[in-house]
């Protein structure tokens, strides 16, 4: 198995996380994906070569890895979780765009986009807050799924686009839960020590 990505690519981060959590051996080839994706051309996110099968894009790679190697990590009820997953992996997803513009352009992220990203964090906090009352510590219920991993990057990397997690207690608890998963790996902006 070969993963083409780079350390700064937040789209590929959930893939690296899942590979590590599942303890799947994988060769990594550094590919220049983030700034290219920002300009709207070039490969979109990570590419996985799994024994000759080539999967392109974070969403497809996550689904492929879970389906082939760890069906437990697929959300059992599609519906709302599916649509959350779709929005998370969309190129127009505000936290993703805000981070790319903040990190890779001189102008930085426009305030409107940062506000939209902040609202996303707040929505996440609202959702986790309600879920915790029902004992749902993860987005799809009682077990972590690829949706948690896909949401983790843009949430944990919020400082990259200038937004703090401090006002969102449930979000912080969920971040600590993801970080506590055996095999968790950090990325630049997600410190090892926490």
């Amino acid at each position, binding site marked *: 198995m070969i993963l083409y990505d780079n350390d700064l690519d937040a789209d590929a981060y959930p893939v690296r996380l899942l590979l590590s959590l599942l303890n799947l051996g994988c060769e990594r080839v550094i590919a220049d994906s983030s700034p290219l994706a920002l300009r709207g051309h070039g490969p979109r996110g990570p590419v996985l070569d799994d024994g000759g099968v080539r999967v392109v894009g974070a969403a497809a790679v996550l689904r492929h890895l879970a389906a082939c190697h760890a069906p437990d990590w697929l959300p059992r009820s599609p519906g709302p979780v599916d649509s959350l997953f779709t929005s998370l992996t969309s190129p127009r997803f505000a936290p993703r765009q805000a981070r790319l513009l903040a990190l890779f352009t001189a102008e930085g992220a426009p305030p409107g986009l940062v506000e939209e990203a902040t609202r996303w964090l707040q929505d996440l906090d609202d959702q986790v807050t309600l879920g915790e009352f029902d004992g749902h510590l993860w987005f799809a219920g009682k077990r972590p799924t690829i949706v948690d991993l896909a949401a983790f990057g843009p949430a944990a990397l919020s400082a990259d686009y200038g937004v703090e997690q*401090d*006002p969102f207690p449930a979000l*912080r608890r969920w971040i600590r839960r993801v970080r506590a998963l055996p095999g968790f790996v950090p990325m630049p902006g997600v410190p090892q020590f926490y």
Partner: protein
Amino acid sequence: MPVSLSGGVEPGARTGTSVSAQPVVVWRGQDGVVRAWADRCPHRGMRLSLGFVRDNTLTCIYHGWSFGWLADGDGGDGKCLAVPSHPGAAPPAKASVPALPAAEALGMIWVGTGPGDTTVPPDAGRGREAVHPVRSVTVQAPAPALRAALEAAPPPGTETAETTEADGGLIAFNGPAVRVLAAIQDRGDGAAAAHVVTTRADTPTRKALCLWAALVRDRLAAVMLP
């Protein structure tokens, strides 16, 4: 002043907040004790709220200076306990983080704005029934506006609201079957937070109160838009 619900800072967790515009790091050691310190490392000024908790010490993420308190009880929170780059040397005695008084009452963490000022409501919890956490909401609005917004839209099941200054300005919403307590945090940085608890333990009531708090927050945020 209230800064969080108790569950907002678990053992081993830290968070930044703001008390009357003063940046504060609130953290809980594995001993379960909550501490509130100035959010600034005395070494290079890094925010300690970006650091990490190990056992009962808080370590700065920048150069790894650790802070805690000495077991021999000479007083003094926030003492520097270790500097990784000088493992053999005694930690600098003058490098300590100013500590603020912190305490837990009514299911919330309260932090004083200066030494000697606990700002924990003096009668908090006394003679009151047990409370259960609902949630905290933060909004970009002045504290009086958040207070007014909450009072103007009392939670479902309550009929009267009373505010007691002796209770740190706590708003108590009273109903026949439920009491809801909301404590307002004036962050002083243009934002305010409400920390909400209730006397009811059942999930449907607390979820309904969660939605209520979020609704008040969202309505106020819409009004505050420039």
